């Protein structure tokens, strides 16, 4: 496909292409963007206004009171000075002396406020001056519209890391993910080499079984493995929910894809290289270690990214093989728990969710090329 097909002749078609694609991209990015913005907002603002309002300055009305006792006598005149806006980034848009008249005066204007001359500046500072003394019962209100610039804070992140146990869940997820990514690779690489370059009876049949196992639903494995783990736990008096248990489970579930991907890649290496090495007297073991492994790094990387994302994002396996205590709960389980228990605390949910998707997103954007290659090579399984 190239750009010539629609492009140059039909300008309407070109425009339509841009518009449709832009709409689709917007639909695909806005939900995540909304989550990110929300997680950075003040938690009170988060639940009272949509996240899209956080990007532009918002306007808010407020009122302040001037009282007789606050005036001071300076050089024979009576003066009250102060600042309505403590936050330096806020600005006065307009002010008025009654609630229905908010836009009566621009900032910087001087108006008569009872017995005084009142000036309100854009930065919120004001001065009320009178030549006469101020009566005891003087009390006036000033109404104003203030512009609040977008404000963002990491407070939500600090909160979930400090008090919701997200920090611990983050470590737990790493504890599950790294070994569950590394262990299958080595085991699969040896098997893949055997399938690709060694002769043994039943090779075709065994590999066909591996291809078949690619699509076996996880659900078929859960109950027997849970029973097996419980029995082992009881027989040997060890806990049945352990990190070792989930590492091996993820290894088992990831192996068919690993063997399949690596076998296809290793099988595609040039025959001459391998045969000439063997003629020089190298055994299969030497060929595998010295030749095949170094040449297979791209395929190994593809699978590693696949498995890393899969294990990091997994909920089901963690639910079955790990406990829910704080020393074992992973981010996905934790998030699901928070959705149930803190369903309306969006400041907690948004920041926790973003922490949980941060690492996969980084891996994804850094190593997208390898990820795509893995997808293209192994598109029979798919998550």
């Amino acid at each position, binding site marked *: *496909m190239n*750009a010539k*097909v*629609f492009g140059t002749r039909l300008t309407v078609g*070109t425009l339509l292409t841009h518009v*449709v694609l832009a709409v*689709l*991209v917007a639909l*695909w*990015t806005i939900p995540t963007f*909304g*989550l990110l913005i929300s997680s950075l907002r003040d938690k009170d603002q*988060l639940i009272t*206004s*949509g996240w899209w309002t956080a990007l532009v300055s918002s306007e808010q009305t407020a009122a302040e009171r001037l009282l007789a006792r606050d005036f001071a006598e300076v050089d024979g005149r009576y003066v009250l000075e102060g600042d309505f806006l403590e936050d330096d980034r806020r600005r006065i848009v307009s002010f008025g002396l009654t609630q229905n008249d908010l836009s009566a005066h621009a900032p910087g204007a001087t108006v008569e406020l009872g017995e005084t001359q009142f000036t309100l500046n854009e930065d919120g500072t004001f001065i009320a001056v009178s030549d006469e003394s101020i009566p005891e019962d003087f009390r006036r209100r000033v109404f104003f519209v203030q512009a609040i610039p977008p404000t963002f804070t990491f407070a939500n992140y600090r909160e979930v890391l400090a008090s919701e146990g997200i920090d611990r869940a983050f*470590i737990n997820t*790493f*504890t599950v993910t*790294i070994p569950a990514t*590394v*262990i299958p690779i*080595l*085991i*699969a690489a*040896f098997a893949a080499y055997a*399938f690709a370059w*060694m002769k043994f009876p039943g090779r075709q049949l065994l590999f*066909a079984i*591996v*291809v*078949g*196992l690619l*699509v*076996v*639903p996880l659900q078929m*494995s*859960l*109950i*027997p*493995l849970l029973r097996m783990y419980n029995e082992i736990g009881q027989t040997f008096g060890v806990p049945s929910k352990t*990190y070792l248990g989930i*590492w091996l489970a993820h*290894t*088992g*579930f990831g*192996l068919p894809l690993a063997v399949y991907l690596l076998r296809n890649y290793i099988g595609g290496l040039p025959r001459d290289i391998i045969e000439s090495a063997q003629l020089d007297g190298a055994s299969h073991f030497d060929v*595998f270690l010295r030749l095949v492994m170094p040449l297979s790094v791209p395929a190994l990387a593809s699978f590693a990214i696949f498995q890393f994302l899969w294990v990091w*994002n997994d*909920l*089901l396996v963690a639910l079955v093989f790990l406990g829910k205590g704080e020393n074992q709960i992973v*981010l*996905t389980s934790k998030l*699901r728990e928070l*959705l149930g228990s803190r369903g309306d605390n*969006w400041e907690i949910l948004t920041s926790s969710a973003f922490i949980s*998707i941060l690492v996969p*997103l980084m*891996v994804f954007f850094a190593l997208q090329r390898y990820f795509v290659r893995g997808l293209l090579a192994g598109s029979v399984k*798919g*998550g």
Partner: protein
Amino acid sequence: MTQQVLSALLAVAAGIGASLVYFFGSNWLLDRLAPDGRAADGRYLSREKIRNAIRPWLFLFPALAILAIYLVYPVVETTRLSFFGRNGDVFVGLSNYRWAVNDPTLQTAIRNNVLWLLVVPSLSTVFGLVVATLADRVSWGNIAKSLVFMPMAISFVGASVIWKFVYDFRGPEAQQIGVVNALVVALGGEPQAWITIPFWNNFLLMVILIWIQTGFAMVILSAALRGVPEETIEAAQIDGASAFAVFFRIIIPQITSTILVVWTTITIVVLKIFDIVAAMTNGQWGTEVLANAMIDWMFRGGGDFGRGGTIALFIMIAVIPIMIWNIRRFQAEEAMR
């Protein structure tokens, strides 16, 4: 916490170490036990044949053992359990299956799974194809693809949080903070608690998976589109075919097999769909699906392994045609090598 990090690192080291010890050790042992040598009558005796017969199995053993324990045995055992009572010790014949087809919740689950199967693979593939086609025609196509692809990296649970926020509902007097309800209000409508509206809420959950899987479809189809020979397109254009005719008559027929692969791959994901339903509704308001019902029965009241196994088997049976198709396709490819 540091201790846990250390133990994880130790596990990585131990795992790699154990594997290396096994592979090095077993191969070394093989060379020692079956060396070349001299027979009793003094002839040179090569034992290479013996070594070559044994070595493949040394390479294969760990993988085959783990596959057998974690996948093959469980498939057999789950099938057996589906004919047994809750603890797997009393034979109950077909009673779990009778229960499964008559239970109202499971009927809903089966109906929903069928709905998911009809909607998600087709829409994901269509959107993926549209994005892949359009992105190849604009200068910012790669950025567009990258952004549409991004949800693939997000967990189903993370995506559920993202979309639950999109669907969020506040009372009619309050400011809506969910995009959908804010739009509805802006257009003069009444805000709704969308997730709790039976039947239609299923489609709102499907949106999440479509959102995730479109990127996958796009990547695979994009590669297939690049493989369509330029000449076929140019020939059609010279003959005066319109852009749409070129797309539907020339391009689509040439990528049909890829479309089929994408479709079946997403179908398998859909059959197993669990996380989204578990996180969004946990099967309430008529959104139950098989995989969620299975986990529910697996843990309910200490676990009913017979019924849980039966539900798992339903998913397995739906996968079997795809499994056979996959193996056939693989064997055809092998024959062409």
